[in-house]
């Protein structure tokens, strides 16, 4: 896509002429690329024979769209961008000193939006209409925010590439599901228990992989994630295999109110309001929001404590850490355990929200998505990761809502199927535009005179 036009040609060709020529080239390339992909399609006819469908109209649309797009980009968008850049260069001081109001108060605005989100949704759509928005968007995204913040401790701070993070999510979910269904223990007891259990497995994983670095560490953690999943599938007596565990008890409002319609202390009966499933969802929304805030609070606090600094130092240079008397073994183990603990919290919440867990929910793809969120958001940055989770999870969820696409591509078009394609495209685009994620810089944990963000070009990614 790089524009490689020599300066001499620039002088003779006006932007429009150049744009016209490049549009022709782009159209020709698109034609060559797509003639077999789009122009022809194999299909079966009624008598089960293979036939070749010709779709020249569609091909023409794609080629023309490409050519027009290139024409507009080269002829109008590029000169406009250059003008904007020149203007910016002419007045650099003003732009640098005054970051926008939104950017300055990003965290406060984010917290306010998150707190008000269910209220606004209920006001807009009513209780019944709010279900989808609170559950599919709000809770779903926040679960991933929490998971990504947990993984951020392991990868973003300590620099240990963990590809099996979903294992701790699974441990937390099954801990709650099993203890909750068999012993009838409350969510509020099992939440810390699930966290501790996951932390314990974090340490268990940590011990054998302490000596491994980089790719080797990634592979072993990947294997660990698969081991946990396979155990869950095959240990039928306990986990009920692939069929999963259902009938997991719901969370209660700290034991005071319940969300089961049949219970005497059902929330609607206690408060004397109309029955609705939305109360539970809204309660769960605030619950996971609270857990997210807990994760963020602990992460921010830990970064300013010696252990958090040691994690970051470990990411930067492990040998230097040892020369300063830092016990790298315990430091790595605490990173694994802390990250796993938040995964366990998220897992037990997930089990409570779904009411059903099965090994299907803990496949490698989940680990990959969480990792992608961390990388996309910018390793180590909480705000960036939250935005990345919103884009990635919210983006894939919103695809279900884009019904107008059916009008364009025909009634049997299901946008969800293109989820992964768009996911990949989004990652490529973001990585080209911001190679270090949305927030590439690092906030120092202490300062003498002023807090200056450390540019991403100085920080290291860690070697495991």
């Amino acid at each position: 896509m790089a524009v490689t036009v020599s300066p001499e040609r620039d002088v003779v060709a006006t932007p429009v002429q150049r744009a016209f020529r490049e549009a022709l080239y782009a159209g020709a390339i698109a034609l060559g690329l797509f003639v077999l992909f789009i122009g022809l399609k194999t299909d079966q006819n009624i008598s089960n024979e293979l036939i070749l469908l010709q779709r020249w109209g569609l091909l023409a649309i794609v080629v023309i769209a490409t050519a027009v797009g290139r024409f507009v980009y080269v002829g109008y968008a590029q000169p406009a961008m250059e003008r904007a850049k020149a203007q910016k260069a002419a007045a650099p001081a003003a732009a640098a000193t005054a970051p926008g109001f939104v950017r300055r108060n990003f965290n406060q605005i984010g917290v306010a939006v998150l707190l008000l989100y269910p209220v606004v949704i209920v006001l807009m759509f009513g209780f019944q209409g709010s279900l989808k928005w609170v559950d599919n968007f709000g809770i779903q995204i926040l679960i991933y925010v929490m998971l990504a913040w947990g993984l951020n401790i392991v990868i973003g701070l300590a620099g240990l590439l963990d590809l099996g993070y979903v294992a701790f999510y699974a441990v937390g979910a099954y801990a709650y599901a099993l203890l909750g269904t068999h012993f009838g223990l409350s969510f509020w007891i099992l939440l810390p228990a699930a966290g501790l259990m996951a932390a314990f497995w974090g340490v268990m994983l940590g011990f054998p992989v302490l000596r491994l670095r980089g790719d080797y560490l990634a592979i072993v953690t990947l294997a660990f994630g698969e081991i946990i999943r396979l155990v869950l599938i095959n240990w039928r007596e306990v986990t009920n295999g692939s069929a999963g565990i259902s009938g997991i008890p719901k969370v209660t409002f700290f034991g005071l109110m319940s969300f089961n319609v049949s219970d005497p202390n059902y929330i609607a009966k206690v408060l004397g309001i109309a029955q609705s499933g939305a109360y539970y969802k809204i309660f769960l929304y605030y619950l996971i929001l609270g857990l997210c805030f807990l994760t963020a609070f602990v992460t921010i606090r830990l970064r300013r404590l010696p252990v958090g600094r040691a994690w970051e130092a470990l990411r930067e240079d492990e040998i230097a850490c040892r020369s300063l008397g830092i016990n790298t073994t315990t430091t790595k183990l605490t990173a694994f355990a802390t990250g796993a603990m938040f995964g366990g919290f998220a897992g037990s919440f997930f089990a409570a929200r779904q009411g059903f867990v099965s090994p299907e929910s803990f496949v490698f793809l989940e680990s990959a998505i969480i990792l992608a969120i961390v990388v996309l958001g910018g390793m180590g940055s909480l705000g960036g990761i939250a935005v990345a989770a919103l884009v990635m999870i919210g983006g894939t969820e919103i695809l279900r809502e884009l019904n107008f696409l059916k009008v364009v591509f025909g009634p049997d078009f299901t946008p969800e199927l293109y989820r992964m394609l768009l996911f990949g495209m989004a990652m490529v685009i973001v990585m080209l535009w911001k190679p270090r994620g949305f927030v590439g810089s690092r906030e120092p944990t202490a300062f003498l005179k002023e807090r200056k963000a450390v540019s991403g070009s100085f920080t290291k990614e860690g070697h495991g």
Partner: protein
Amino acid sequence: MSASPSTNDFILQVEHLSMKFGGLIAIGDLSFQARRGEITALIGPNGAGKTTVFNCITGFYKPSEGMITLNRIDGSSYLLERLPNHEIPARAKVARTFQNIRLFSGMTLLENLLVAQHNKLMKASGYTMLGLFGFSSYRKASAESIDLAKHWLEKANLVDRADDPAGDLPYGAQRRLEIARAMCTGPELLCLDEPAAGLNPKESAALNALLMDIKNNTGTSILLIEHDMSVVMQISDHVVVLEYGRKISDGSPQSVRTDPRVIAAYLGVDDEEVETVLIEVGDEDVIEQLDTGPDAAHGPGTSSSFLAGPVTDTIGHSEGERVTVSKGASKAEQVDAKANAAPRKPAERATAKPTGSTPKPRGGRK
């Protein structure tokens, strides 16, 4: 050499230290002492094993043989070869810097110095638990640690850049920061691996001043590897010279400077002279090897950077293969041989040739 009236005079005693990597003997039977409150320099040509000695002292390598005793000022002593890597700075109070600077480049200067105070702060934060809930004891310790960091930043003349990332500093400043970081661990022995490498004369002078300041004002003893002789001769009180893993000289800077064995090790001896010596010694085998030069593939070549490279990579490098220094490679040994051979009669030379028992004045290299 080990006779010392009071062991507390010596902060560090290295006795019969040997380090073998497979068949390669990087250090052979090395003994020396470093006095408390002095600057001891460890010098030698490239590949002499200086950094290996450092890695043994600071626990990055476990020596094959020998004993390294560190006597702290409170009278306690530690056998460094038995302590785990990270406990050497924490308990025995030995801090080190690296030949290829190892700063936390993505962290600010201040943070670098705070990481160095990890163990102290860890205790103050109640192993994270008290600090997590914001107890005041941690806040106090944290403020103190920032004061100490500021103190050392001022000493290293870096306080203006305290909030910049360490990776953004020029090379000379990075060297000073690494020393300041090591000093923030509160060491009794500071090991500096080529602190003046790559510095210009002005920076080198500033480094000398910093080291003298550390020596005079903190009571920290310094052990130093250096190639820059202006640094070594100006500031060190005691010099130990290594060549091919063996000590060839030990004493004050003046005595070392005039030692013919040291001069030979650094500058070499004339080829003619070498041949005369070797013929006198009667070792044809050696002459043959001399013609081809030191075996670059095995023995320490002219640049044995693999000894100084990333410390973790070196172990297990040459397993199961016996590697020895080629016999004629040690220049200091040639000087010895010459000195020993000179009194012998020329007539004897002709007949003594096939006896096979070549005189090995400083023996043991087998």
